[in-house]
């Protein structure tokens, strides 16, 4: 198999999933790139996790109450899913269509929202936005339950336009007016949730969406140039057909899957870094009737994606889940998952609890002196643990290949963690380090130790922080 096929597949699996072991990359590369893209785009053809088995051993997952319980569950899913793109899109939408535990009555409510993203996150954007507008976690988070026909609360209406669908502006002009925000909010009056059952004595229950017709503003509204007696559903229909919506989703997909873009607030004035790529994605959006899988198919099969290697800083979730998939730990229920899940928080991404409705700022903003140390310490600890199955498999593989020449040894170690490439100076340093250790001899404890050590040095490089 051609080395470039392996490299390309490793790139695809990093972006469209949470990385893969070298064996999985080889297997997928043998199936072919486009076939793999199609498989990723058909998650329902792959088995889901055995939820009964998880609930049996992780007893608290059946209820999904506390934030940390939900974080552990989401981490386990990212590590073990056989539907990697579905889970990646769930993470994608979680970072855009944000709700947070800091303003949530019940942790399970956000998990149910993520379940909704799993079902709708690769389908029609219209359907997704409509369900989001009915999502109890969102209704509570953005106060739509406080928006009444005689006293609207603009919070949800504003964020629906600004952060969830269109963005403030593009190409130097605004996408909507303050009047549009108000009219939008009027259309969603009466979209509320049931009164919650208090937490004492037995614990919370998920709230349900409820439409209160008596509190819905039935009056005529003018929204984005169209006039009618609009309800929320009609507003979503109008939003879905806006060029600004296509642009907004295209830029988000590009930023998440291809290369780091400026942050959302800059999008009105700052053009896309690759306008042609964005145009391709916008066309796919309209040609497919707003279908996200169609946009993703266009994206993953494009040259702009294939050529965008290591152009993105890994998010904390990608860093932790990718590392655990690589070392093949927590592939079955066992204690000790909580500290792994917390690493994502310590690296700056408190899953299910984003800092604001704007979500997390991505790209270089993931990195500061504290989070960088956290990343390197965590990944080095894991990859240097030669008892873990994935690390053991790498050692056995290199040993079986008889790799003992220092340059080849370093290059194969780079292949094993995702076909990384280092600048000559860094690579030379690693080779020199291996040479200083003396002759490599396969099948020895020293060989395994030095594989682990070399992998640790690789994950500590600047380059490894990129996907």
């Amino acid at each position, binding site marked *: 198999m051609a080395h470039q096929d392996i490299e390309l597949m490793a790139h695809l699996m990093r972006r469209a999933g949470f990385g893969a072991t070298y064996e999985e990359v080889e297997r997928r590369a043998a199936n072919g790139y486009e076939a793999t893209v199609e498989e990723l785009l058909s998650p329902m053809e792959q088995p889901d996790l055995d939820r*009964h088995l998880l609930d*049996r*051993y*992780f*007893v*608290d997952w*059946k*209820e999904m109450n*506390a934030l*940390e*319980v939900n974080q*552990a569950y989401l981490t386990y899913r990212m590590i073990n899913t056989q539907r990697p793109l579905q889970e990646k899109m769930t993470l994608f939408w979680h970072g855009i269509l944000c709700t947070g535990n800091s303003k949530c009555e019940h942790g399970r409510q956000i998990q149910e929202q993520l379940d909704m993203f799993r079902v709708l996150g690769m389908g029609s954007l219209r359907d997704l936005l409509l369900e989001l507008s009915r999502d109890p976690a969102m209704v509570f988070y953005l106060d739509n339950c406080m928006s009444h026909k005689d006293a609207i609360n603009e919070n949800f209406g504003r964020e629906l336009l600004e952060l969830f669908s269109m963005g403030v502006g593009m190409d130097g002009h605004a996408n909507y007016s303050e009047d549009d925000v108000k009219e939008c909010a009027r259309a969603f009056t009466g979209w509320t949730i*049931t*009164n*919650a*059952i*208090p*937490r*004492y*004595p*037995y*614990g919370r*229950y998920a709230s*349900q969406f*409820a439409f209160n017709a008596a509190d819905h503003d039935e009056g005529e509204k003018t929204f984005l140039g169209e006039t009618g007696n609009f309800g929320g559903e009609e507003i979503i229909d109008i939003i879905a057909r806006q060029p600004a919506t296509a642009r907004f989703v295209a830029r988000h997909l590009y930023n998440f899957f291809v290369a780091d873009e400026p942050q959302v607030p800059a999008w009105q004035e700052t053009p896309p870094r690759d306008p042609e790529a964005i145009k391709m994605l916008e066309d796919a959006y309209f040609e497919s009737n707003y279908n996200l899988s169609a946009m993703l198919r266009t994206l993953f099969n494009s040259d702009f994606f294939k050529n965008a290697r290591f152009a993105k800083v890994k998010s904390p979730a990608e860093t932790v889940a990718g590392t655990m998939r690589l070392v093949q730990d927590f592939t079955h229920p*066992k*204690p*000790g*998952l*909580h*500290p792994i899940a917390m690493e994502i928080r310590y690296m700056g991404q408190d899953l299910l609890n984003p800092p604001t409705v704007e979500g997390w700022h991505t790209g270089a903003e993931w990195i500061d002196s504290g989070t960088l140390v956290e990343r390197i310490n965590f990944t080095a600890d894991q990859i240097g643990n030669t008892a873990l199955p994935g690390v053991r498999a790498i050692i056995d593989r290199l040993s079986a290949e008889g790799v003992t020449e220092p340059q080849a040894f370093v290059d194969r170690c780079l292949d094993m963690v995702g076909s990384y490439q280092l600048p000559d100076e860094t690579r030379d340093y690693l080779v020199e380090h291996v040479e200083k250790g003396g002759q490599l001899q396969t099948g020895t404890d020293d060989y395994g130790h030095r594989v682990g050590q070399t992998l640790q040095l690789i994950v500590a490089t600047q380059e490894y922080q990129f996907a």
Partner: protein
Amino acid sequence: MATQTIGITFQYSHTIGRGEFSGPGFRNPVAMARGEDDTMYVVNRSYEYRPDGKRITVCTVDEDYVGEFARGVHTAGETEENENDGSLIWPTAVAIAPQGNVYVADEWLNRISMFDRDGEWLGKWGTKGSGEGELDGPSGMAFDADGNLLVVDSKNHRVQKFTSGGQFISAWGSEGSGEGELGLPWGICVDKDGNVFVADWRNDRVQKFTADGQFLQQFGNGELNRPTSVDTDKDGLVYVADWGNEQVRIYSPEGELLTSLVGDATISKWGKDKLDANSEMWQEREIAQGIEREKLFWGAVAVEVDDEDRLFVVESCRNRIQIYRKQQPMFFGGRL
């Protein structure tokens, strides 16, 4: 409410519990056993990140708090674990020996810990493995009439019999779905005749064996969804925690489904205390919608029937135990 079937009524009595990481209350309870003088020993699994909630709570059927023992420990990886005697990581089951000692199984530590009735640690046994006497995921326990302990060795898909001191006696079962085979079994009980019932979790059925492990009967196929616990009463009725369906199934001795319970919870004594201390929640409850959901089982993981025909249903997701009484009609006079 009362659920009546063939002359037998299962009358809801009351609910015990509330969500607490310590003191009066439970946190993700997964098993219980009835002790002497109306005491109850309840196994709390808690959240992984709150090991302080892992404990055995001792209380009475009338919801008087007695105490707790056997605290959980933090888990930061297999090799770093604090595995002190009497500590808990993944507690699963509890059984009371004839002399009153309390046995607690931990399916991660592969350990059976022994405590006296007051919670003083007495000893332990258990080694991970698949050989005779070794354990891989002990998930259910029951004493037989001879005072020997039957342990569901779940990941080895078998039942093992030990003396009360932990000496291996015998084992039966193997992985599969045929008669007498088991799939990640969970709960176990011994009936008045010495027969053994096993909740055959992954096979969605209950199997009945002789005391020495000969297959006798299976039931619940097509009805049960991941049954977790089974118990029998002195009349031979079989009670099954139908965990995947959030119900308790009650079968005749012949395996005929007699009735199903879905839950009737009311506010417990401890629950009332908590609400009184947070009075705004009484008001919230007044306007809460769908509060009838609170009656229903959620995480009905264990059933226990005591000598007084009281049925206890442990709910892992609601931190409580619902109690029913079996009532049979009494008739006076001769036949008409």
